[in-house]
């Protein structure tokens, strides 16, 4: 585990609490999926929490985030209220996207959280466009774009990195390399398995980061955001692992249990707790208190979602296009 000189007790505890919230939130999601409260696809972030928490801590509120269909972690780490995210999973109108998007399409315009994109690679050009708007409007913002290592096989990854580098746009590309594109291992899909090397081919800074170590993620993200803030894209390849299945419909025949156990031994929560205690930044009482507080937050989120309302079917055709001035036809 990386020791960050600047890491203080309160920050360590906050990082721990944010990761724990994602973990507990999603554990509850699994139960609620079984109970039929959540339907559709549900992709869990279990094991990858350090990536979203570490990266998003390096951002300012005016920066933008583009994520994938596995984005509960990013949404919570970005500060979207857990109740609104849960209500979205319930399909309730109180949800982050009014219930229209579900698990894969969590949006929050005021927190500059731009989804929730469920086409692999599809969000990458959007992130580059958001960064272009910031550059043209002379706003000092950075856009962080998350995608899995499966996306690096998509043309949109290559087209977008080329454009971002060519136009010197402030994008931090964050590749969450959890080793499997659904069921395909990286070396099954890719002739070159070094994602950072691909980015360097587009003349941008890139580094490989231990994505199970939230302190290392945070440090790398701060370096990357600084580069982007100065007007250049860069890429972070986060080596991480999802402990559970790709989605709720995955028998995991493509990997063995021993591998999963090896990675579970590197659980980012346990790792931070261990290092934090060793450095005197965290203690058992603080961790236990965080557990209680997070459990309460998740309970409240579920209660909020349960209390939420369903949009009446008469509203079905809303939000397809913006409302038009009725006088416009004349």
């Amino acid at each position, binding site marked *: 585990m990386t020791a960050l000189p600047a890491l203080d007790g309160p920050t360590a505890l906050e990082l721990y609490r944010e990761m724990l919230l994602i973990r507990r939130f999603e554990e509850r999601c699994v139960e609620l999926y079984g109970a039929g409260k959540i339907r559709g696809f549900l992709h869990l972030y279990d094991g990858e929490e350090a990536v979203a928490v570490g990266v998003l801590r390096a951002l300012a509120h005016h920066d*933008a985030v583009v994520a994938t269909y596995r984005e509960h972690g990013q949404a919570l780490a970005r500060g979207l209220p857990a109740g609104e995210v849960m209500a979205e999973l319930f399909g309730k*109108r109180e*949800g*982050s*996207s*009014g*219930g*229209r*998007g579900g698990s894969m*399409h969590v*949006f*929050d*315009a005021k927190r500059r959280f*731009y*989804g*929730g*994109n469920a*086409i692999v690679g*599809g969000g*990458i*050009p*959007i*992130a*580059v*466009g*958001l*960064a*272009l*708007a*910031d550059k*043209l*409007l002379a706003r000092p913002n950075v856009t962080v774009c998350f995608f899995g290592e499966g996306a690096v096989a998509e*043309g*949109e990854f290559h*087209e*977008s990195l*080329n*454009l971002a580098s*060519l136009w010197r746009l402030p994008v931090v590309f964050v590749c969450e390399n959890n080793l499997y594109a659904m069921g395909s291992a990286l070396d099954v899909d890719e002739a070159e398995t070094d994602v950072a090397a691909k980015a360097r081919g587009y003349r941008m800074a890139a580094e490989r980061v231990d994505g199970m170590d939230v302190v290392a993620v945070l440090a790398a993200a701060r370096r990357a955001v600084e580069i982007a803030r100065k007007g250049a894209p860069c890429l972070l390849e986060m080596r991480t692992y999802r402990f559970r299945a790709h989605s709720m419909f995955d028998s995991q025949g493509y990997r063995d249990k021993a591998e999963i156990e090896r990675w579970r031994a590197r659980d980012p929560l346990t790792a931070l707790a261990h290092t934090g205690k060793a450095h005197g930044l965290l203690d058992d009482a603080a961790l236990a208190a965080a557990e209680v507080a997070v459990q309460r937050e998740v309970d409240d989120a579920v209660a909020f979602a349960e209390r939420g309302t369903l949009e009446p079917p008469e509203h079905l055709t*809303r*939000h*397809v*296009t*913006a409302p038009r001035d009725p006088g*416009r*036809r004349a």
Partner: protein
Amino acid sequence: MTVSYRECCKLALRQCLDQEPRAFLMGEDVAAYGGCYAVSKGLLDLYGPERIRDTPLSESAFVGVGIGAAMGGMRPIVEVMTCNFSLLALDQIINNAATLRHMSGGQLGAPVVIRMATGAGRQLAAQHSHSFEGWYAHIPGLRILAPATLEDARFMLPAALREQDPVMIFEHIFLYNQEGELDAKVTAVDLERAAVRRRGAHLSILTYGAGVQKSLTAAEALAAEGLDVEVIDLRVLRPLDDAALIDTVKRTHRVLVVDEGWRSGGLSAELVTRVCELCFDELDAPPARLCTAEVPIPYPKHLEDAALPQPATIAAAARRVCGRG
């Protein structure tokens, strides 16, 4: 003063760039080269490389970048060289531009304008002669425009730039060289209504794009035979102007759809169905369609001509609908 359709497209771009500081044009070869169909020729010198941006040959990326820049507060005008290449950007157009407002519960929009050339008639063979506007008209969340006149080429784009949702403009390659007088009275156009380009009493031709001029030519020939044909320029292919369909059918009671798209599963099927749904009782004859033959567009001129609706085949189809075939 005579002006070409191409020049009208350029004047439209200039109006957008002059009046909307957030507007910029990007696409393949729009800057140094001046645009594949020379629409943006000279604009680089006037507006500079920040606002007239050449892109790599990366349709998916630069269309997606346009969508993202629109979400970020800009008003991008994206030129996809031709609709044939827009297939490489389908994911961005359909999965992102058309769905973002809905998926986000109305929080976000993508006010991007995507222009492209469309159509056949220049012996460009199968991969460069598609007409995909009818396909795009299938997608909720998009507004689809087909300027057929100088006035629409001149004024649809500035109107599109004021929309809050994605707009696609299909400029028919056959029209760029068309010249005429721009109606001085027209300073703006709507993006809602179909237009009656020729009044008639016996038959309504529903068409758009290059089909308008061809249908007007056919109508003149038919007038000499005593057939008085009305020509409706649909202008907006999504959403369709139902009221205009009802109006014209109530006047003429007969319908012929002329569509450069293919017949099966296409826009012509939609139009005929709508007419039947909206005003079946007004019809005196079964509605008919004249579409492009169901072949990839061939290269030789005589075969390409044979594949597409032409004034003579339009006139023949019109006679049949009117019982004079």
